[in-house]
Every structure is written in C-alpha cells, then in structure tokens.
C-alpha cells in the first residue's frame, strides 16, 4: 500500500487528486493540505511513503518544505507537482532534492504513474535534465562514462545507492541518475541484472 500525502495550494486540485487516488488499488491518501507550513507536521503524524508537493504553496516556499523533508531520518519520496516544465522548474526541483516531477499540464494519469515510480525508487525527470547531474557533454548511448563504470562496479559488489554515494563522495540523487542511465545503456531492468552483466565479463 502506497501511503500518499497531498500538498497543494488549490483545494480543487486536492479534491480531484484525492478522488482519483482513492479509487486506485494499492494507493491511499493519508492526508491533504493547502498549507505548506502544515506539511512537516502531517509527515510526522502520518509517515507517508510519498509526498506530492506543489512548489507554489501558501505560507512557506515549497522548496523550503522539500529541504526540511530531506533532513528527516527516513524521508518520504517527494514528487513535485507543477504546471511548469521549463528549465527553471526542473532546476528548482532537482536542487531541492525532489525524486520526481509531474505536470499539471499533463493528464492526472501521469501523476498517478509518477507516484508509483518514485515509490519504486526511480527518479522521474526528463532525460534532458541529466546535464545538471552528470555535467555537460555526456557520451553517446552505449558508452559508459568512467563514473558510470565506477558505480557499476560498486553496485556489482552489492553496495546500496547511499553506500555508493558515500564511497564516491556524490549525492544520493547523483548516484540514482548514474544508476538510471547505467540501466538504460546496459539495457537491464534492475540491479541484479546489472550485477550479472558485470560478473559475466561486462
């Protein structure tokens, strides 16, 4: 069961999303608020798995809410819900440590899918945002970057993402991005497959 907290400035959006999510198997809305200052308390109280967060909240800046959530011992996944899909919105969400971005200018079905994806540990951002994580000028698909090879080796050795992050002196999000691209370049679906490929002579 994915437990979801909704935080959005617009009551009608909360009402709509809540109706939609409550009708979805395996998802339950545990709380909803239009007040950004309430988010931290509600997270403490309900311990949601995923927080769906509008960055344009009343009372407090959405990015501040996000940063505060990141500082918790077991932070929930955070999916930023916004009307803007430009560089500015992506940058703000990434900088504040969000796990994904869903758009209010797309079908709500996309938000639903994104909630499941961030809950499963995926980073849900457009591929184009990679340049902010990996630096500019990434190689052609099929070629692993030196960093991706390092991540791959550590993953094959059984390290988790936070452990890899610590080992390489990177942020968790950066490692997640490397893992995401590693999977797509290797054409594998998960860590086990990636480790097997590594073990079988790469």
């Amino acid at each position, binding site marked *: 069961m994915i437990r979801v907290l909704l935080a959005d400035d617009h009551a009608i959006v909360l009402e709509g999303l809540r109706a939609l999510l409550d009708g979805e198997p395996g998802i339950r809305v545990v709380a909803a608020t239009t007040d950004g200052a309430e988010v931290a308390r509600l997270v403490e109280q309900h311990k949601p798995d995923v927080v769906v967060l509008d960055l344009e909240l009343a009372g407090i800046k959405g990015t501040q809410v996000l940063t505060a959530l990141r500082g918790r011992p077991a932070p929930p996944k955070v999916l930023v819900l916004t009307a803007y*899909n430009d*560089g500015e919105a992506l940058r703000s969400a990434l900088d504040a440590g969000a796990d994904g971005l869903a758009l209010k*200018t797309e079908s709500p079905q996309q938000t639903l899918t994104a909630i499941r994806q961030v809950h499963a540990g995926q980073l849900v951002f457009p591929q184009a945002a990679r340049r902010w994580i990996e630096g500019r000028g990434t190689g052609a698909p099929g070629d692993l970057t030196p960093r991706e090879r390092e991540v791959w080796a550590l993953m094959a050795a059984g390290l988790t993402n936070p452990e890899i992050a610590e080992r390489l002196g990177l942020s968790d999000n950066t490692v997640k991005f490397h893992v995401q691209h590693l999977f797509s370049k290797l054409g594998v679906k998960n860590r086990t497959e990636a480790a097997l490929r590594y073990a079988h002579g790469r």
Partner: protein
Amino acid sequence: MPGAGLLLLGVAVKRRDADVRAAASRRLLATSERELQRIVLDMHDGPVQDIFAALSQLQVLERALAPDPPSQVRARQAMGLLERALGEIRNFIGAFRPPGFERRPLGAIIEGLAVQHETLTNQAVELTVPADLGDCTLAAKIAIYRILQEALANGHRHSGAPGQRVMVARRDVTITLTVSDDGKGFDPERVLAREADVGVEGGHFGLRGIQDRVAMLGGTFALESAPGHGTSLTVALPAE
C-alpha cells in the same frame, strides 16, 4: 569659431537623445517580460488548476461508467478534449514564462533553456558555456534568452538536423551567442525579405525580431546559411 561649438553641442544633444532612447528600450524589454509573467501566472492560477482538477474527477467518473460503455466513451472524449486544451496551455506557458532573470546568472538561464528545448522537442543541444561567463544587465539577459529561444525554435522547425550547437562566449564587455546546425540551410536574403513583407506568424518573432532586439541594445547580428549547408547565427551584445 562659434559654429563648431554649436556643432559639438548638436552632437552632444544627439548622443543624449540616443542614450535616452536606449534606456527607454531597455526598460520596455523588462516591462514586456513582466507583463508576460503576469499573463502566465493568470493561466497558471486559473485554467490549469481547474482543468487538471476536472480531469481528475472525470477519470473517476470514467471508471465508474464501465457498466455503461456508450457513456464511458463520452467521458473519454471529454477527457481527450480537456487534455488537448491543457497541452496548448503547456506550450504557451513553456514559450512565454520568463525564467528567473533576476535570480539566476546568464549561464544558468541558457542551460535551463537548452534543457527545456531538449525536453520539448527531443532535439539535442550541444552547449558550450564558459564557467567564468559572469553575469550581464537584465536587458542583455532578456535579449539573449529570447533570441536563443527563437533561434532554437527556428532550428527545430526548419533545419531537419538532429541537433543544434549553442556557444556562448565573453570578451571584455561583449557577449557573443552562436547557434548553429548542419541542417538544410536556406537563403537568408529571401527569408528576411519575406518576413519584412508579411510579418511573422504564430507568436514567433522570427529573424526580424532577433535583429530588432539586437539593434535595441546596440549589438551586431550575423547570419550565415545556404541551401544544403547548415545555418549559423551569431549575435554580439554589450553585457553592461
């Protein structure tokens, strides 16, 4: 020679007139961005929230209508229409929402635009921005952003190339922006003449608009292209 004094005075007055006009042009640029910001905010706070909420509710309704297929089809049609409306708003907001001109330096704004272009079009942008690019005046930043946006849009619509190159450089107080591709190319004179005749359609200000923005800031504009030989657009603008 009293005449020479008058002449010099005349030159000074002209210079002052030119300065006043240039300052007014710069203010006008900032004002039009603020107006765009306001329109985008109105779209954001009104129709976007309403349509998104309505779509959520409709989706619930659509599921509940499973026992009544004809009604379910109608619900789906309504959802399709609303999604189309949202898509149009998305394009509008994407094109017109000003980035954080006051908050972010020039390099970050250019990067943001490159990411946005790749996300919206799937066309790759090869970006070269020096780490020490520094910042520039608000007017120059706005001009560079809007010019790059237009150039990338043109390159995507017309070049047929899988990617474009964007290079930004700074020498003293001049910022140079070059946008190039290896696509189809065109005859610049014919295109510029046509734009002068019929104006530019579809909310795009075109090459003519790029030249106007450059002229307002006292910069230079160069366009190299020929059918079959790709396109390269270079503008140089004063940063201060």
